[in-house]
């Protein structure tokens, strides 16, 4: 193969290499721009990823829904319709196997179903919030300390939702972004 041809092929490959992260960015930006923001009550713990760094893993309070007779398989996609409760936090109002048309919804994964309780357990997809490496552990501690206040769970994740796709924008403790809260 001639050098020129190799070079042209390489340019195509290079464009793909740029295109994939660029497309990831494009997707998320559009959700942040035009999606609707919801607050999900959560509890953070801090693990880490060898390539992406430290993050806090978020356990959401919204993780189950009473189920009808439908059979659910582990690992299956589940569409959770959401709306805001009186305090302004997200709450699940329905679960379906196909994307609903009217309400806002998020795509989650089925963990297991508890048959005798007639309940479906699911995982929301936005469980990782990346933080500066020395702050992630502090964030877990800060959350635990904030829990000791008399208030009920006051840690929540701000998530933008658009057509089932979701972007986790920030995590708040007592309405202060977690990164700032840790610095205090």
């Amino acid at each position, binding site marked *: 193969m001639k050098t020129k041809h190799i070079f042209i092929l390489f340019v195509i490959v290079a464009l793909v*290499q740029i295109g994939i992260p660029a497309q990831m960015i494009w997707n998320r930006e559009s959700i942040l721009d035009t999606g609707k923001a919801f607050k999900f009550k959560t509890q953070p713990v801090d693990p880490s990823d060898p*390539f992406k760094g430290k993050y806090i893993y978020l356990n959401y309070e919204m993780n189950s829904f009473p189920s009808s007779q439908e059979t659910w398989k582990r690992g299956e996609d589940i569409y959770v319709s959401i709306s805001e409760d009186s305090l302004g936090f997200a709450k699940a109002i329905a679960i379906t196997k196909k994307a609903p048309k009217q309400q806002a919804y998020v795509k989650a994964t089925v963990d297991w179903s508890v048959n005798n309780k007639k309940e479906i357990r699911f995982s929301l997809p936005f469980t990782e919030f990346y933080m500066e*490496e020395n702050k992630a552990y502090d964030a877990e501690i800060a959350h635990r300390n904030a829990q000791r206040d008399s208030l009920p769970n006051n840690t929540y994740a701000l998530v933008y939702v658009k057509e089932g796709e979701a972007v986790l924008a920030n995590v708040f403790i007592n309405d202060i972004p977690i990164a700032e809260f840790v610095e205090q």
Partner: protein
Amino acid sequence: MNSRLIKELPELVANNVISHDVAAKIEDYYSTKQTETPNRLFAIFGVLGSLLVGLGIILILAHNWDHFNRMTKTILAFIPLLIGQVIVGFSILKEKSQAWKEASGTFLFFAVGSSIALVSQIYNIPGNLSTYILTWIAICLPVMYLLKSNMLAILHLVFSTYYAFEVGYGHFSIDETPWLYLLLIALALPHYLELLKHKASHNITSIFNWLYPLSFTIVLGAFVNDLSELGFLMYLLLFSLFYNIGKLPYFDDQKLRRNGYLIFGSLGIIILMLIMSFDDFWFVEQLLFNAQESYVSFVLAIANVMLLIWSYNRQWIKSFNLFQYVFIVFLIMYLFQLNLPTIGTLIVNVLIFVLGLTTVKIGVDKFHFGILNYGLCIVTALVICRFFDTNISFVVRGLLFVGVGVGFFLTNYIMLQKQKRNKEQLK
């Protein structure tokens, strides 16, 4: 090695071993040869440098710098990628040396990884490790062929294995099989075959001769749910396949240290069989039909048989070597449920002993002290394992040890004598 030879030339001339003319010719020959070979050292250090810098960048970016806003972070995600692409593009366009291509390709590989990682980090994209690695190696694969880069092929193999490991053994993976690993390997095979065809005697080819069996050994277990059932048979079949590949004249005629398949296969078979030689083993083993292990084992068994038939037809198999056929015995034992504790243990122990003797014989035939002593080590290992089975009397165990020890002395002594005689005959 060449430089050592050149350094010794004056001494050889001084002692009238060779003439001045011959010395000059030898020197000439090596100096022209050296200019022809690319600077290998430069390539190795270039690759090593890129590897470290690339990994370093990933780690630095993984710190998650809070002070940068989203825009700055996004730009940072693309800078290493663009730099890598420009250097690779430059080395292609200017037709730079292979060293350039290897080093720039390695850097680009890690730059791609870091840019995807950073974007996931900025937008808190959860995706698991395996999908991330899969995307990463998929978009770097073409670069390996465009640059004809060996280092990228190694990275591809290592990360494909990492991917399969994550999918198969990872935390969150239950019932998952890394089928895509097979595709990833298939996509990298043309590069390996090219090396085998045109660069059979190069060191880089023997590196792959070791890496491929290593990768397969790691990954095989990821293809089944539960290793406890047919795992032993499956791995035995894999090692047997390695051994039979290593026995193909193409590999067998090369130096032993280049033949990763043969060494991997032989060691694997022996270690597995030593484990199987314990009494308790055969109580647990049972054949389960309909499990994925059975299918994987079946495929491996067929591959073994096909390879043997092929070798036989080509008349590559000249003498009987038990290592090549030992898998058949195990297939029969599993298939016909012959896994009665006493019979299984007995057969395996006898087999190991015969394999040890076979190896000693190969060592004697080839006049290879390494192989000879490896065979004796097999027998020793067998005796040591039996040492732990308390139901053999101490006297018998003691006699076994003495016997093997004497065997070590005798065989090595006889070989040495033979070698001396051969040398004298040559004189």
